[in-house]
């Protein structure tokens, strides 16, 4: 039981931090509330889910004490009979959850928001497993409205909406997660919501806002001893500063990311790969090449394609035909996932640097075809456009290289030491 003082402090906190209203619907998809469910589940089960959702949303719109008489007195029995009649025995689990939601209709003033939220969350899990993501999202949102102090739930909805490609709506949920987390002092969702917000702002090119969010995330992560996340945020800060062209700050954040004593350091190879690309693009070709070689040995899964592409490009610039061929063959043999168009574009860049015109042409064509398969439009990765721009890029790289020669000894030392540190971490990880 919290003391009066604690309660007052908590109320002050709630007053102080207003929580933005979340966007519950995609404004571009009008129509009856919850229609997405009927689009995904065209059956009697779909109608029951839809009706239950609408009852819960109506319930959540009112405060305790205002809910008396909100629903028809015969509605609970009717709903029970409909569930009994329409939900097949094989879906007993769903039947239980839908029955649990009748509490909102049956005793609106006594129904427990947390219990309703729990049932909604279980229905969302069921819907996710049934391959109906929009239904899952509708019920997650309903859960969040029934348990309006749950920051983790709001954060999960933000991720889910982001996955559906609705950035503004996702951002409104991240903001809500932030506000709730701050009120309830639930620091993990707080840090993760700031991280998600920072990434979104980075994508939009709003760098100062992104930086602000990352800094808040990293400070809280450090204070709460969330080492893995702290390292991840420093990694993102490094990417942000390198994108913004702030080389000194980028290096500093990369160093911070490496220095966080994260026990698993699961994202170290990706950090190293990004540092390799950064060195390559800032004229420190040798460092870039060495680090990318190590990263390509360790990175598997979705990130592998991008890493192999970057290595092929660096190998081309370094004149290392053997490594270039290896990276190209690996890409060809192993990988056909996200980032393929960009990876093949990098192979074309490496081939051009090596003077392999035919290989460059083939890689550019591959980049174009995989961009078309992914986006339906090759856009900037159209083969002939790409081959034209590569020539310009190579000239620009020469200028960058010349500039890198002008670094003073101290600046160069910072690069050298950091590269050495990355390579020795690779060596430690592989036990040599």
């Amino acid at each position: 039981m919290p003391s009066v003082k604690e309660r007052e402090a908590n109320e002050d906190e709630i007053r102080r931090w207003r929580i933005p209203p979340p966007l519950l619907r995609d404004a571009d998809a009008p129509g009856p509330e919850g229609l997405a469910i009927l689009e995904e589940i065209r059956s009697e089960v779909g109608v029951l889910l839809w009706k239950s959702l609408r009852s819960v949303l109506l319930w959540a719109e009112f405060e305790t004490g205002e809910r008396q008489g909100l629903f028809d007195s015969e509605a609970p029995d009717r709903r029970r009979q409909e569930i009994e009649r329409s939900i097949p025995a094989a879906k007993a689990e769903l039947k239980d959850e839908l029955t649990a939601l009748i509490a909102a209709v049956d005793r609106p003033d006594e129904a427990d928001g947390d219990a309703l939220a729990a049932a909604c969350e279980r229905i969302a899990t069921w819907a996710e497993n049934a391959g109906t993501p929009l239904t899952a999202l509708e019920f997650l949102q309903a859960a969040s409205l029934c348990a309006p102090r749950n920051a983790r739930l709001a954060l999960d909805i933000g991720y889910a909406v982001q996955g559906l490609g609705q950035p503004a709506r996702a951002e409104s949920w991240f903001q809500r997660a932030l506000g709730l987390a701050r009120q309830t002092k639930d620091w993990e969702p707080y840090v993760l919501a700031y991280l998600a917000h920072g990434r979104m702002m980075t994508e939009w090119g709003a760098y100062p806002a992104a930086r602000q969010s990352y800094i808040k995330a990293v400070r809280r992560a450090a204070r709460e001893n969330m080492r893995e996340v702290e390292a991840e945020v420093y990694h993102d800060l490094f990417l942000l500063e390198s994108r913004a062209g702030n080389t000194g700050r980028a290096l500093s954040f990369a160093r911070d990311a490496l220095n966080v004593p994260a026990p698993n350091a699961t994202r170290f190879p990706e950090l190293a790969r990004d540092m390799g690309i950064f060195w390559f693009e800032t004229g420190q070709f040798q460092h870039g090449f060495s680090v990318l070689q190590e990263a390509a040995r360790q990175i598997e899964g979705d990130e592998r394609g991008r890493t192999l592409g970057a290595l092929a490009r660096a190998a081309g610039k370094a004149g290392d035909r053997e490594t270039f061929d290896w990276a190209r063959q690996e890409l060809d043999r192993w990988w056909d996932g996200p980032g393929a168009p960009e990876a093949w574009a990098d192979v074309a860049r490496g081939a051009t640097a090596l003077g392999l015109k035919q290989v460059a042409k083939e890689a550019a064509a591959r980049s174009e075809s995989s961009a078309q398969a992914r986006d339906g439009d090759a856009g900037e990765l159209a083969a002939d456009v790409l081959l034209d721009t590569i020539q310009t890029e190579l000239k620009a790289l020469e200028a960058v290289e010349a500039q890198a020669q002008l670094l003073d000894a101290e600046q160069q030392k910072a690069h050298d030491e950091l590269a050495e540190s990355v390579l020795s971490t690779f060596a430690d990880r592989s036990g040599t």
Partner: protein
Amino acid sequence: MKPAPRPLVVLHPDRLLRDRLQRVARRRFHLTTVDDWDDLREVVAEAPPAAVILVDPYHGQEDAGEPSPHLKSVLKSYPSATVVAALETPPERYRDLWTMGEWGIAEILQVDEDVSSEAIRKRLLSARSQQLRQLLTHDYGVPLTGRARALLDAAVDTVMAGGHPRDLARELDFSPSTLLRWCQRSQLPNPRRLLLWMRVLFASALLDDPGHSVYTVGVACGYSGDQALRRAIRSVVPYTPSELREKGAFETVSRAFFDEVAKLRDDHAERR
């Protein structure tokens, strides 16, 4: 500025439902009932686009097997009309519910469940704001943050209810100063101007319908008449209502609104 009741045209035989609607309508809606689809068509053709049409989708169908083709025809002929279907929703009707969604109805009133005034009001209000919200989703190359989009949605609701900045603040559970700060941080016009824009946008959506006079549009938007509407329009775009009509009123005004939002945009802001 006073809240103007919007027409609520009802084609539904259920007397109990009509009584409930009458109770809910009060100052928000001006209720008119019609007896058949032909009458409804006539009324819809003349009603301002701000009207909400509530229908029994099975009206005139002998066995209530499927929604009436007349409903489909009305929705097709008047795609900007805000139509709410009021019906019982047993699970067996899953095809009908989905079909009506496809046809473009704005909301469903479950006559067996949405019986309280609060429930009916919620359905009608949700339907009422959809048109303007949807029009505002058009991509003018000005990406809005989630916070800005939420403020915009709330502003649409406030304008639809004939509200003022203090009502917008109340809807968001903010103090007026918090609302002002949020508008600044979201890089939107201040609350007063935001509501002015939304009201003029609403008026311009109505102006695009050639069947309505400038006077009726002004009154529908809560102005005392055409002069007041002209002044409001002039304060955001340099055109008269007639000029706006010629240019495509909503397109012109919404472009001007997003131009103003683009000018307020600051990528160097530390807080978004």
